[in-house]
């Protein structure tokens, strides 16, 4: 269905209900939809399952959701960081569930969800505690673990620019989880630096086709400034 252009981050995240599974793009700060996550914080939605590479840093965004005990479960590869104090406290207190997934399996499980793959055999994690209890198989002499798709009710991602049809481009390593999360979520909300007329993005260079994007909203960040400086955005 046609993409919706939301006038604010508040409206962009409206309708995310309690108990939702939320996919949050980003690797460190790069590509993290900080402003959308802030709006989710303000929305009051609780009992969330969050899929993200990390589990919140410092006193912002996901970390605050965790601090307020609005996140029941985190599915991620790397929760423990120097500034993950809110997660650390919730985890040690037994107030948050953690599903630890090797980073590549996390990406591939998201990809499988978007691609209609029912399950796949991956070599990553074979023979480790993270594969305990999972089905394994030897194929052509290599050992694999069976992993299942990871779907989201909603994805909150950050692109560099969108056109009015929801086609997205990204910037440098901020691309990271955005494209697979957009396809893995039932509803994808993207914050972008600019919204351009259809036809302004080169069809050869679109990374996420608009079919995967439901809501876009314009938010200015340092990414947009940098892109303007290098002439990639006007």
């Amino acid at each position, binding site marked *: 269905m046609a993409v919706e252009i939301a006038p604010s981050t508040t409206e962009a995240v409206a309708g995310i209900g309690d108990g939702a599974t939320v996919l949050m793009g980003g690797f460190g700060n790069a590509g993290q939809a900080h402003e959308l996550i802030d709006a989710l914080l303000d929305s009051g939605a609780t009992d969330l399952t969050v899929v993200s590479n990390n589990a919140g840093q410092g006193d912002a965004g996901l970390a605050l959701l965790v601090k307020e005990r609005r996140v029941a479960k985190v599915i991620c590869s790397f929760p423990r960081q120097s500034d993950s104090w809110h997660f650390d406290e919730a985890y040690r207190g037994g107030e948050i569930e953690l599903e630890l997934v090797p980073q590549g399996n996390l990406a591939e499980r998201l990809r499988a969800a978007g691609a209609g793959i029912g399950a796949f055999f991956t070599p990553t994690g074979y023979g480790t505690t993270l594969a305990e209890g999972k089905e394994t198989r030897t194929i052509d002499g290599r050992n694999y673990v069976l992993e299942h798709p990871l779907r989201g009710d909603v994805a909150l991602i950050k692109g560099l620019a969108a056109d009015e049809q929801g086609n997205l481009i990204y910037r440098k390593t901020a691309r990271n989880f955005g494209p697979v999360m957009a396809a893995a979520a039932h509803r994808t909300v993207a914050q972008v630096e600019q919204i351009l007329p259809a036809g302004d993005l080169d069809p050869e260079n679109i990374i996420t086709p608009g079919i*995967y994007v439901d809501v876009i909203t314009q938010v200015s960040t340092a990414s947009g400034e940098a892109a303007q400086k290098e002439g990639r955005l006007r």
Partner: protein
Amino acid sequence: MNDVLDRDQLARLVAADIAPGSYVNLGIGQPTKVSDHLTDEQGVTLHTENGMLGMGPAAAEDEIDGDLINAGKIPVTEQAGASYFHHADSFAMMRGGHLDVCVLGAFQVSAAGDLANWSTGAPGAIPAVGGAMDLAIGAKDVFVMMSLFAKDGSPKIVPELSYPATGLGCVTRVYTDHGVFLIQREGEESHVVLREAYGLSVAEIQERLEVSVVDGSGS
């Protein structure tokens, strides 16, 4: 009684049933005609499984570009907002259920929504499947366009497929010269509902099919 629907009327019916803003794949042959009846206001985006969203009409003579073709290998054009992607991404898009509608031709459709459209099963024929099986399961709604009866008069909506299956339980609507059949599944059961009859009465259609048809014309 209404006259039977000709192919053009059928294409118009399908087009009118496609919700605004939909992403749609039109199969080779008869379904291609649907695009002639899509309006600009509908804002439908066409997918072609060889790697494109935002496909435009067939290319005019002076627009022909060997690198811009559709799944039927016909030169086409590009619309504003189009995007290109590789084959694995294109079929992931279908298999992942992101398209709203696929429109396909068929030899047979079963009461359970099983589809046969890739092979007649004739001995000695060289088999070829292309994207047929991917398309059959490749959208939220799979519409079939076909005549209700074969040339020998036998019905093409059947209790069980006699032709080799392309996909099971995948068809949601069948657009025929005698009317539009909705295949409604509830758990293990499915019902075939005829929206409105053309050329024959509902009773006459029921008589000629071995599948029980619910008269949906009043609803």
